[in-house]
């Protein structure tokens, strides 16, 4: 057998002169090292996200009470959820909440940011004031508004309004949503203002030369200029609306008589009061499914209409 020495040709040797097997080994080693670095994070993720998610899917198909063993019951919980008027009512409340939460703080945030952009003096002061509700803990905000809207010691009795906003089934959901809107709109205003300040001022100058009024400048320059921010916060608002829990739980606990119940508070009640943890898991997954549908629609619209460009 002839000992043939193969000289590496141009296609077999890289520009750096390293033979392919060594390059492959180095590449594999780099990849391996990267995976090893990621391994702890993946392990944590599997432990705290993937594991509980799989467990939730499993428990949603059981009659688990939250105590002791669980028996597999297939899709019974989901069938029950479709027929459950409490779940339907809570889901409708979630969508009402979503509508209000998209429109009210968004509109106030846009108005507030526009007004702030028009002033130079005290702008930082007003930005700080607008931002304060956002940094205050939800329990504190809730307590403040519970007192302000109290039918006995709040503002109402002093101005002749004798309404128990949180205690009346027809106003409870709106009232809690009002508190959340109050907490949220200042944050939006500050974020929108930051986005507005990144819009090229020459566009406004050009528009003025063309005779554009303030509304036209706002409509055709400001809003398109901050569209990526609007779209992103809109997306986040959808997600936060559907998983809202804290203010409802603190202020009304979903009452009176379920009038301010949202799916998350219903889940809590089912799991810890009614001893139906399996059913609560199915409600959680149903809500996640509903959220996914809303987000998919949002994403389709965003892509088709080029909202982020």
């Amino acid at each position, binding site marked *: 057998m002839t000992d043939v020495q193969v000289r590496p040709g141009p296609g077999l040797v890289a520009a750096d002169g390293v033979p392919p097997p060594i390059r492959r080994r180095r590449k594999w080693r780099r990849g391996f090292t990267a995976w090893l670095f990621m391994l702890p994070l993946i392990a944590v993720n599997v432990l705290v996200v993937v594991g509980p998610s799989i467990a939730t899917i499993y428990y949603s198909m059981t009659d688990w009470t939250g105590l*002791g063993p669980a028996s597999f019951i297939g899709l019974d919980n989901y069938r029950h959820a479709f027929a459950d008027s409490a779940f339907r009512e809570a889901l409708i409340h979630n969508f009402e909440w979503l509508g209000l939460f998209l429109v009210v703080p968004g509109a106030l945030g846009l108005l507030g940011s526009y007004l702030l952009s028009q002033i130079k003096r005290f702008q930082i002061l007003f930005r700080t004031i607008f931002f304060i509700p956002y940094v205050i803990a939800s329990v504190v905000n809730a307590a403040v508004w519970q007192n302000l809207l109290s039918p006995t010691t709040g503002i109402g009795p002093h101005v002749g309004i004798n309404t128990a906003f949180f205690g009346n089934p027809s106003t409870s959901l709106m009232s809690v949503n009002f508190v959340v809107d109050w907490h949220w709109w200042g944050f939006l205003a500050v974020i929108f203002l930051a986005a507005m300040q990144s819009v090229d001022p020459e566009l406004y100058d050009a528009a003025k030369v063309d005779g554009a009024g303030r509304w036209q400048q706002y409509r055709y320059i400001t809003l398109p200029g901050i569209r990526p921010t609007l779209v992103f916060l809109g997306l986040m608002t959808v997600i936060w609306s559907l998983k809202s829990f804290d203010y409802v739980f603190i202020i*009304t606990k979903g009452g009176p008589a379920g009038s301010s119940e949202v799916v998350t508070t219903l889940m809590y009640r089912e799991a810890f009061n009614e001893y139906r943890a399996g059913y609560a898991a199915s409600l959680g997954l149903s809500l996640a499914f509903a959220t996914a549908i809303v987000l998919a629609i949002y994403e389709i619209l965003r892509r088709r209409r080029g909202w982020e460009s």
Partner: protein
Amino acid sequence: MTTSISRRGFLAGTGLTALGLALPTSLLTACSSGGGGDLKLWMDIMGTANQKYFDDKVVAQFQKDTKLKLNTTYYQGQDLRRLIQTALQAKSGPDIVRGASATQTLAWSQAHLLADLSEYEKKYGWSDKLLTWAINAFTQDGKLWAMPMRVDTMLLYYNKTLFGQKGWKLPTNKDELEALAEEAHGNGIIPFGATNVDWTAGPEWLMTVFWNHYSGPDALYQALTGQVQWTDPVFVEAVELIKTYFDKGWFGGGTDKYFSVPSQQMGASFGAGKVAMFPQGEWWMSAVGAFFGKKANNSNQWDWAPFPALQDGVAFPLYELGIGGSLGINAASKNKDHAAEFLNWYYTNRQQALQRMADVPATYNLPIQFSDADIPSGIDPRSKRLLTALNKAVDDGNYGYVTWTWWPPKSDVFVYQGLEKVLTGKMTPKDYCAQLNTTFQQESKTGALPQIIKRGSTQ
């Protein structure tokens, strides 16, 4: 700049990272298992003064007497049950388990989350020292699962000063109660203070009162033992009556205010004379004083009375009986013997137990056997009157049933959640009772009912 790392260095770093992840986990496991050493207890005592009393008179005294260490953590009442339940399910949590109702405790025992106390009961002779009906409520299939924590009843608190000023007499029957409520309401005074803002289960207190004092304890006993249905008119009428009172604005100033005025504000109105009476549990005796006297910037006084009979044939005075919570032992505890030692110390150290009853009104009313003569001097006379009244009620057979002890868990939850729907007009009293009946029948088949205290004179 590129930093290179040797293979050995990388492996060492990975090892340390893994150790870093593993160490907290193992520490958490060690902390939660409660193995050996200190006993752990989670309690729902609120307020600095009340917690200090428990620390001084229970924790410190127990440690002094037994040389065992007891670590106590305090939680808000409604949070505690959820936290303990989650911890028990994870084979973790405190050694000594502060349970909620009797039916709740039995649900935990059926899930094997609580230790069987029967051996300890024999060893320490607890049945001879505690009230039989209270021990029985936590005994199922001959096994004791927890110790009854506090004797509960419902009382009608009233602003004594306001009653004196108006010349009102304490009502003993429905006609007198309604006449008084009419007059108070006409004078711009809320007849009955009530709110469920801080305690969503609050409506069950009212249902307990109306079913006992309108439907009567005999009817309740029959329903709880399956002899009659909850759809019986006598139960529906009681719900209709409570709805009528709410519609008239007698409770809390109206339905919407009942759901929105916090208990502190309602209590302040009671102390200020804007609320005449307050149906509440005996446990409120330790808190109601904050709304009266110098602390509340008024010179008013409070007192309590038994709730009037709301129908002919219902005894007066009548006290509904129940147990406010329980103390058991975590099945996963490695300190069961020491935990039992704590229970034995807490329940059988008679003088200390009676002194706690005397020191803090109604909070430490253990279901232990004692005569009126055993009650320590220096006790608030209103608190003493309660103790003697309850002893007499048990002797005479004039007792009823509180929902949070004798109703199974889901039925109990429905009692207060369903009543919200009735009060807001989303459900009729008839439908409410029908739905309660369905839930109750389903639960009673699963053995979720405690041994109920029978009718007649007992101990």
